[in-house]
């Protein structure tokens, strides 16, 4: 409704006036009705701006499910399937299909196979250097996977991981050198030492919040460094301990020694991945996913004992780290002080940050990148650490959660942008946006919405003071074309929230109510105003409907 003069004034003459009218409604000022077919043509003409359609998630799709969905290959003795495959019917073609819903096991398998056949692919000239680097990669990747368990799953920001490994390595080396303990006993003894260490630093882990604990463990790392570097029996004179027993025989040719070291480290890595899977993927990890950061109080109130789960994970990983420490001593025959350096902690942090904190694949990828930069590109000299530091800084500045968090970060950004575009384009009750349209299964509903919107836009132009005055004078009976079109639209509306009149007594006052649209639910009172005559009440309902129309 505007204040301007109506564009097409005319005078409507009641066709029934020839036979006389009861109410004296022979003619009324009205407006000329524009052709509704114009609105249709304009709307369906192909100049509508098309926006890019929403989600595009790509699934690998195989044809034909059905018989094979039940009798599938499983991991004996469990009922667990080989791959997470979902069977469904294609919406468009009605052909049955199979989709792999989770492709990660395939990627893991491929990567591990690549690592296993790695030595066959290394160039002969650098074989030794690459094998040594590979062995280092295996051990550090195993340490970082365990560290990811602590930082990611258990949310305990501990920086003392390398201290645990170093302590276990040093003590087992000492035992091997002094007491002649054989190499196969070193990892289990290391595991015990790791357990002891874990118990020691587990108590503050519960009491302190995240970053307080991080700083405390940083200090502990330093403490252990000073202790070991200044104590004579731990080799302060020689920069470390050497001479422990090893499973790598000194008499083998050097290439064989490197190969054994490489594959042994890989086995350690696979073992740590199994540990990650069994802790993170099973009950403990699930318990802790129910108690995310800042919502722990709620989880505790619901009965989730997250503290115990965290401590359990912490102790289990400390055992694992101790085991790795013992293994380290057994493989390299000893250990140097550099493992307690602040530099090592920084490199370890770089490794798990670059890949993404909280995911095993992140730890492995980050370790690969950093070890490659540090141990393979030796010609770069001091630039290596610079590049590693720059990579760490870059990843932390631009990525929310390392390399493997890119997908989630992008999706979140895209959802935010989509919400903004949508809020700039939605109108109440308007046409469905493309991104909503792909989610609605019944496409008829979309066409109905579009048609409805066209109608309403057209009718909005027809609402003028003349129409309202005409209706006020005579709510029922013959009306001009403009008013008739509006009334027919109102009468066709669906029952939900449709206005109606309620009569208190036989000639009683009328009130406006609205239907609920649901069987058995009584209508609700819309307005307290009472109308004494029916005509007044009809007009009031009409005004309300006009008001609602104009608001959309």
């Amino acid at each position, binding site marked *: 409704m505007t204040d301007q003069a109506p564009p097409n004034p005319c005078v409507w003459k009641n066709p029934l006036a020839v036979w006389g009218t009861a109410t004296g409604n022979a003619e009324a000022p009205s407006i000329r009705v524009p052709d509704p077919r114009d609105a249709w043509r304009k709307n369906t003409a192909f100049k509508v701006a098309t926006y890019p359609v929403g989600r595009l998630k790509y699934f690998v799709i195989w044809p034909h499910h059905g018989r094979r969905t039940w009798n599938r290959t499983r991991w004996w003795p469990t009922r667990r399937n080989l791959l997470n495959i979902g069977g469904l019917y294609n919406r468009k073609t009605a052909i049955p299909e199979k989709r792999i819903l989770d492709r990660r096991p395939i990627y893991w398998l491929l990567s591990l196979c690549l690592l296993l056949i790695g030595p066959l692919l290394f160039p002969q000239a650098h074989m030794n250097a690459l094998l040594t680097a590979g062995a280092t990669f295996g051990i550090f990747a195993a340490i970082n996977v365990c560290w990811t368990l602590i930082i990611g799953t258990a949310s305990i920001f501990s920086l003392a991981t390398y201290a645990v490994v170093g302590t276990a390595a040093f003590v087992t080396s000492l035992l091997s050198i002094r007491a002649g303990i054989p190499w196969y006993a070193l990892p289990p003894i290391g595991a015990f030492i790791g357990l002891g260490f874990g118990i020691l630093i587990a108590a503050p882990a519960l009491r302190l919040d995240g970053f307080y604990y991080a700083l405390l463990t940083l200090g502990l790392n*330093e403490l252990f460094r000073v*202790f070991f570097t200044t104590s004579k029996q731990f080799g302060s004179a020689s920069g470390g301990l050497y001479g422990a027993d090893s499973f790598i025989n000194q008499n083998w040719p050097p290439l064989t020694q490197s190969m054994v070291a490489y594959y042994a480290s890989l086995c350690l890595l696979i073992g740590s991945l199994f540990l990650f899977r069994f802790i993170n993927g099973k009950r403990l990890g699930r318990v802790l996913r129910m108690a995310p950061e800042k919502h722990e109080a709620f989880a505790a109130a619901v009965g989730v004992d997250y503290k115990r789960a965290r401590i359990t994970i912490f102790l289990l990983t400390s055992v694992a780290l101790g085991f790795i420490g013992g293994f380290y001593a057994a493989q390299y025959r000893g250990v140097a002080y550099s493992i307690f350096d602040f530099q090592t902690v920084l490199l370890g942090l770089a490794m798990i940050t670059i890949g993404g904190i909280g995911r095993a694949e992140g730890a492995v990828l980050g370790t690969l990148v950093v070890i490659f930069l540090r141990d393979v590109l030796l010609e770069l000299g001091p630039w290596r*650490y610079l590049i590693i*530091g*720059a990579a*760490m800084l870059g990843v*932390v500045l631009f990525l929310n959660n390392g390399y493997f968090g890119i997908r989630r970060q992008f999706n979140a950004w895209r959802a935010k942008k989509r919400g903004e575009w949508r809020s700039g384009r939605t109108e109440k009750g308007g046409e469905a946006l493309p991104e909503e349209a792909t989610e609605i299964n019944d496409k008829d509903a979309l066409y109905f919405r579009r048609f409805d919107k066209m109608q309403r836009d057209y009718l909005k132009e027809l609402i003028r003071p003349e129409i309202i005055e005409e209706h006020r004078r005579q709510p029922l009976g013959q009306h001009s074309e403009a008013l008739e079109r509006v009334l027919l639209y109102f009468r066709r509306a669906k029952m939900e929230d449709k206005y109606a009149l309620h009569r208190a007594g036989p000639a009683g006052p009328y009130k406006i109510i609205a239907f609920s649209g649901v069987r058995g639910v009584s209508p609700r009172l819309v307005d307290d105003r009472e109308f004494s005559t029916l005509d007044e009440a009809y007009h009031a309902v009409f005004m309300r409907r006009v008001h609602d129309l104009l608001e959309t």
Partner: protein
Amino acid sequence: MDIAFVIVNAVTVAAIYGLIAIAVSITWSSLGLINLAYGFIFSFAGYAAWLMAGRMPTNPYLIAGTGIIAGGIAGIIVCLLVFIPLHDKPAFTSRGMIATLAISLIGSQLFLMIFGPTSKSLPDLFGRWKVKLFDITLTADKIGIVVCSIAMLIGVVLWMRSSRRGLEIRAMMMNPHAASIVGIGIRRTGLYVMGLTGAMAGLASVLLSQTYYIAPFSGLTPLIKGVSIALCGGLGSVQGAVIAAILLGLVEALTNKFLGGQYVLMTQFLFIILVLVVRPRGISGLVDIAREQ
């Protein structure tokens, strides 16, 4: 006398590490950033002072001043690289901490490449005079260190209480949302805070190099000690950091006297763990209004 000598040493050490602890506390409580790049700032300031000492070895004020200003510049560099890009992104606290560690790594490598691994030393800033007080010989550098640290601390506290910038910093410590309503820009205040705390670390570097040397990795031990003191005193409270510095200095002194030098770190950490187990937020964590994460 023995104990007095040891106490004097403890106070000296506490003064230097206390400066860093207070810097860490202020940065955390006003910006929500744990700045572990003090290794970088330390070495930066130390090398700048050394370069100045090479030109004008006889002017202690100039050398110290260069160190302080260089520390401030390094702090601002860290702010530009870490705080300003990250402060409104998710997981800001852990990412910020890791970013400062990355700067530490890059910085120490750069210094290693530019200045080489040999340590450098600064000339004595305070001269070589001695004072005898109640049978204790106090050397000039010890008096100088304590006096300078206390002067800087008092200066910083006074400035925070009386100037507009100090008011802004304190306001941001309490309610960053309301701060923007009164025209306090987070990024500009961040620059001020990191410049100020960098300057404090720069002064600590210059003072510390009276006793120790300047090397690419020389900033690590003071960083860890300063951070432990800040932790013990409660991240975010200045008086907590002062109290913790004094207590830890005492612990160091007593351990030195009765158990021997190599157990100092152990006793200090046992003390810190004890304090943290009793009061998880540090000594002043409950008294002061420390910032919640």
